[in-house]
């Protein structure tokens, strides 16, 4: 896996040298062999160093990396069996939402995920992970089915946001999102979400009202894309970098702010450098959290869930006013 992001330039240079040496194969002299090992060590060290302090904007780049594993990759790597459930039972089957039943770590779990796509054709098929209203309604259908059968719910979040076209207004994008927030807050099953890439706006939150919210180390969760925040606040989306950093949207920042429950660590250089390892980490984190919340009596779980969201927000009191 090549280092190809802007801030990875030093790593890419190093990697190029390494690759050049590696090409020699058996013809490598002892001296060069040692040199190669040194460089490999150096690459690892530099990568760790750079990734230790990624800014929110740099995290955005990683979260959007074209080779980053998507929901379908995680499902393939984490589940022993997966049966996709389709359709909103009213209008369409929105491929931007991928959901179904999984054999997961010895039990049945309902997965509901955003699914992007890598090739042009895939991006079109999955609408690049940007759901229409019927996608959110399909999601809700599966959530209610999980509730009906007492199956725990896990969502994988990875979207720039809900699709903002006129047809989406016509079919009630706002209603579809709102309704999911309402329903998820009272689902009588344990629930958990993992932001695996981009957690963008209401389109992300519509799968995100769960007992636990985890985030991949180099993922983001944001009120709106940095570009759109920039065009609102700076009146130009060329300030996306400033916006990303000011909004503190990286997994690590969000953990510090108390907005996510835990961070799932990613392989060195990001999940796309080692998808199986990334999936293993996500799976382990899900198992750990699910085991915990499954112990909590249901009514208590619902009240804890309520308080979790209830308590998000900072405010103060004007002088002279009382709390």
């Amino acid at each position, binding site marked *: 896996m090549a280092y190809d992001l802007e801030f990875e330039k030093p790593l890419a240079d190093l990697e190029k040298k390494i690759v050049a040496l590696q090409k020699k194969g058996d013809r490598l002299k002892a001296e060069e062999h040692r040199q190669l090992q040194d460089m490999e060590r150096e690459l690892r060290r530099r990568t760790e160093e750079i990734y230790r302090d990624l800014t929110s904007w740099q995290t955005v780049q990683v979260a959007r990396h074209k080779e980053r594993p998507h929901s379908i990759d995680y499902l393939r790597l984490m589940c022993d069996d997966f049966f996709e459930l389709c359709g909103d039972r009213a209008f369409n089957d929105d491929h931007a939402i991928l959901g179904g039943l999984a054999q997961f770590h010895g039990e049945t779990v309902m997965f509901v995920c955003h699914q992007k796509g890598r090739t042009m054709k895939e991006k079109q098929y999955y609408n690049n992970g940007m759901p229409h209203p019927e996608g959110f309604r399909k999601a809700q259908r599966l959530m209610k089915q999980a509730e009906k059968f007492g199956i725990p719910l896990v969502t994988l979040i990875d979207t720039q946001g*809900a699709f*903002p*076209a*006129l047809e*989406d*207004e*016509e*079919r*009630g*994008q*706002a*209603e579809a*999102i*709102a*309704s999911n*927030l*309402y*329903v998820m*807050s*009272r689902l009588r099953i344990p629930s958990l979400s993992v932001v695996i890439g981009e957690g963008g*706006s*209401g389109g992300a*939150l519509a799968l*995100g*009202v769960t007992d636990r919210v985890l985030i991949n180390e180099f993922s983001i*969760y*944001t*009120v*709106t894309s940095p570009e*759109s*925040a920039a065009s*609102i*606040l*700076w009146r130009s989306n060329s*300030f996306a970098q*400033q*916006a990303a950093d*000011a*909004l*503190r*949207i990286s997994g690590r920042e*969000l953990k510090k*702010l108390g*907005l996510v429950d835990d961070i799932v660590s990613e392989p060195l250089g990001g999940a796309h450098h080692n998808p199986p390892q990334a999936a293993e980490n996500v799976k382990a984190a899900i198992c750990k959290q699910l085991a915990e919340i499954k112990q909590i009596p249901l*009514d208590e779980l619902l009240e804890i*869930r*309520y308080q979790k*969201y*209830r308590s*998000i*927000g*900072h*405010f*103060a*009191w*004007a002088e*002279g*006013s*009382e709390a």
Partner: protein
Amino acid sequence: VRCPKCKETLLTREWEKNQKVCMRCSYHFKLTAYERIEMLVDPESFVEIDAGMVSADPLGFVKRAKDEVQTYPDKLRDEIKKSGLNEAVVSGYATIEQQPLALAIMDFRFLGASMGSVVGEKITRAIELAIAKKIPVLVSSTSGGARMHEGTFALMQMAKTSAALAKLGEAGLPYFSLLTDPTTGGVTASFAMLGDVTLAEPGALIGFAGPRVIEDFMHIKLPEGTVNSEFVLRHGMIDAVVHRNQLRTTLARLLRFYTPAACTWTRRSAVAASSQAGEK
């Protein structure tokens, strides 16, 4: 004043007497929160709560541009000064034709009525007050969307308010949502669209993305008024478009429908239910 729709110049006194509705074309001007409260509830019945709640700065937000550094607290100070309000929503309880309800009325003058922690918190508290008092809730919405300066905290207010409404619903209490010009973004995609009964003033801009975003995204030009009250009514998202001068009466009627005394069957069964053990 000049009507932005029909361009007619209106006599201020008459216009105010007409609830700030254009006498010629019925264009509904924006109201301040206190004007709307006065218009809707029984005189002297409104009791405000959480009036002194003001925004904090959870992100330490600073907007840096070439020649300008603006912090969120700076911005807030300006807005408070400009609007005379502490935040973008006024909340409390009151009566309409002697029927009690909790209410939260948004005010567009304060930072475009964007939703940050305070808007979310005040609305949630109004809903929780209603649950405690066993009374209905009215939220009058207007909003440009989420408060960018609070980042993901702002986003989460959507979940917070929606969860509070879900609790209200479980308690069997009705929620009336009134949409006014303009209602967009995260507010639309949370409590504004969750009414048991949802009303809108005529001609109000109502949408998720809003027309400008749609136009940018689709590279098209939308005709004026494409995404408005009448549009969402036609598409099944709301129950009625109600002229401002009918709002008070309409709310009074709605309150009567849901009043426990009108539901003779519910009362009986509620008694029966409370004598049972266990859940709900």
